[in-house]
């Protein structure tokens, strides 16, 4: 099993001296344990952060009783959820009912393993990549695995044998399938620029040139909106939609299984944020050209901290949006995904591909100032035009649906006729 992994590693990072099998194995196990525990602690604390931020936005104080400033609230919640009774609906499909929480939880964790979170760490046994599994097909792996998350929600909805849960599951599958496409398409320009699907290479390309968000803002915006839909967060939380569907797909879940869905939501949020940072905000890159080889331990620590900062900022952004915006209507959601984001991202691929082709033909070197500057200039023009054009009642249909001109004429004629008839009677 080892040799093929080494071969793949060689392709991904040619400067990596091949560590011996045992060292590779031990390093991977250590990385797995550290990343998993850090990740779970972060997710637990994020449940507290969400409640705190929601409270602050609503001029409240939030949980502050358990531990200093409420820091132990997640522990108390966890304890409560473990002690609670697990209920099973009598008509539920039990195996799937039990399996569903895990199925929504595992993909969120799996995605994390290919995201590079710091610069390589030099050790006496060789350079160790700060990513659990430096797959050369990293991005494709993420696309494949993140789509699996929908199974957990659909199965939860179906196996509960509850009409609200089923509706939630259906909505989520439609929503995730729709936005998956826009999401995948929006990242193609990133892959075009990097010329590779390995996330390590995407980060390296941004560290050497400029962050993708500067050159590919439209792709970033599409990705951001799709990520909201993919993680079922407001304003796209239609699968849950308390006011319409009780609690959607997890209406029938209690105790720790409900908690698993909750954890999965936050885990997905962290993963989506980390992905956003990796693809568009330079991953662990710190602006300025000092985070390059030769690698040191301090560089690893600093870049790791900066990566965490960027990721947490996006998690905060998620929460900020959640407590600001109301939920979309279902037809608005679908229209936004299919009629705006998908054509937009497809058109953007064409524009960026032509721009790269043109720059290559003109002999401008990739990663040079001229290349970045040209993309930046093009980007500013596109963003300005798009924001001006889209933001005139075209982004989403308002709460009333737009009448086209012919229907307005018809209604006017009807109104005039009915007025005439009333007069005639009198």
């Amino acid at each position, binding site marked *: 099993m080892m040799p093929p992994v080494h071969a793949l590693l060689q392709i991904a990072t040619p400067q990596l001296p091949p560590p011996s099998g045992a060292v590779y194995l031990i390093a991977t196990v250590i990385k797995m344990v550290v990343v998993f525990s850090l990740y779970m602690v972060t997710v637990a604390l994020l449940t507290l952060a969400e409640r705190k931020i929601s409270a*602050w936005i609503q001029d409240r*104080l939030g949980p502050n009783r358990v531990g200093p400033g409420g820091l132990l609230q997640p522990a108390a919640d966890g304890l409560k959820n473990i002690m609670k009774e697990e209920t099973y609906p009598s008509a539920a499909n039990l195996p799937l009912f039990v399996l569903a929480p895990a199925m929504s939880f595992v993909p969120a964790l799996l995605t994390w393993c290919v995201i590079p979170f710091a610069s390589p760490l030099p050790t006496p046994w060789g350079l160790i990549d700060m990513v659990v599994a430096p797959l050369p097909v990293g991005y494709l792996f993420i696309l494949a695995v993140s789509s699996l998350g929908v199974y957990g929600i659909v199965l939860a909805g179906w196996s509960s044998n509850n009409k609200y849960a089923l509706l939630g599951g259906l909505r989520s599958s439609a929503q995730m399938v729709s936005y998956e496409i826009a999401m995948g398409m929006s990242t193609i320009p990133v892959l075009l620029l990097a010329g590779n699907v390995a996330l390590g290479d995407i980060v390296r390309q941004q560290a050497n040139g400029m962050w993708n968000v500067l050159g590919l803002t439209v792709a970033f915006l599409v990705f951001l909106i799709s990520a909201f839909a993919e993680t079922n967060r407001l304003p796209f939380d239609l699968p849950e939609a308390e006011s319409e569907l009780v609690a959607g797909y997890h209406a029938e879940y209690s105790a720790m299984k409900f908690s698993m869905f909750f954890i999965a939501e936050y885990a997905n949020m962290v993963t989506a944020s980390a992905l956003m940072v990796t693809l568009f905000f330079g991953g662990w890159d710190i602006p300025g050209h000092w985070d390059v080889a030769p690698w040191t331990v301090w560089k690893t620590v600093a870049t790791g901290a900066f990566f965490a900062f960027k990721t947490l900022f996006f998690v905060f952004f998620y929460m900020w*949006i959640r407590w600001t915006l109301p939920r979309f209507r279902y037809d608005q959601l679908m229209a936004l995904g299919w009629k705006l984001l998908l054509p937009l991202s497809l058109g953007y691929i064409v524009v960026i591909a032509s721009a790269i082709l043109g720059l290559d033909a003109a002999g401008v070197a990739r990663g040079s100032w001229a290349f970045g500057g040209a993309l930046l200039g093009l980007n500013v023009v596109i963003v300005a035009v798009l924001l001006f054009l889209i933001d005139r*009642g075209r982004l989403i249909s308002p709460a009333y649906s737009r009448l086209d001109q012919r229907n307005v004429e018809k*209604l006017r004629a009807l109104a005039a006729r009915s007025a005439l008839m009333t007069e005639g009677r009198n």
Partner: protein
Amino acid sequence: MAIGVKVLDRPVAQTSYIRATLKGMALTAKHLLSPQKVTTQYPEQKKPLSPRWRGTHRMLTTEDGKAKCVACGLCPSICPANCIKLVPGEDEQGNRYPLVFEIDEFRCIFCGYCQEVCPEEAIHLGRHYENSEYSRQGFVYDLERLMAQTHPVCELWDPADPKGE
């Protein structure tokens, strides 16, 4: 007969999602950062009660420590919730006093009629609301317990403005 249809031209060109979103986010950010919070940290901080707050009952006592109640029976008869139990007694001098005086705080609707009707100003409602018990029986306050309450009593009217003008 068709109903009249009023057709409004919607201001589609002025409607916006992006601008409205940014405005909303600025608003929530302002509230997020503002140090003014509305939460009352309950057990530590308490909101002031109105002087007319009608809460847990209290039986006032005379200077020698006896209940002011003369067991006239007006409060149990006026009580709309029927929560006062009174058994009158009489001593050798012919003074009436309550042998049993119990108020079921669970049944009480805190209307304040008992205080209003009392000729001796003995039974009062109080400015107090924190009464929790482990059993329903614990909410039946007997005479001793009513006399032991120390919280300020309810003022049914403002002494400076008795007609509420």
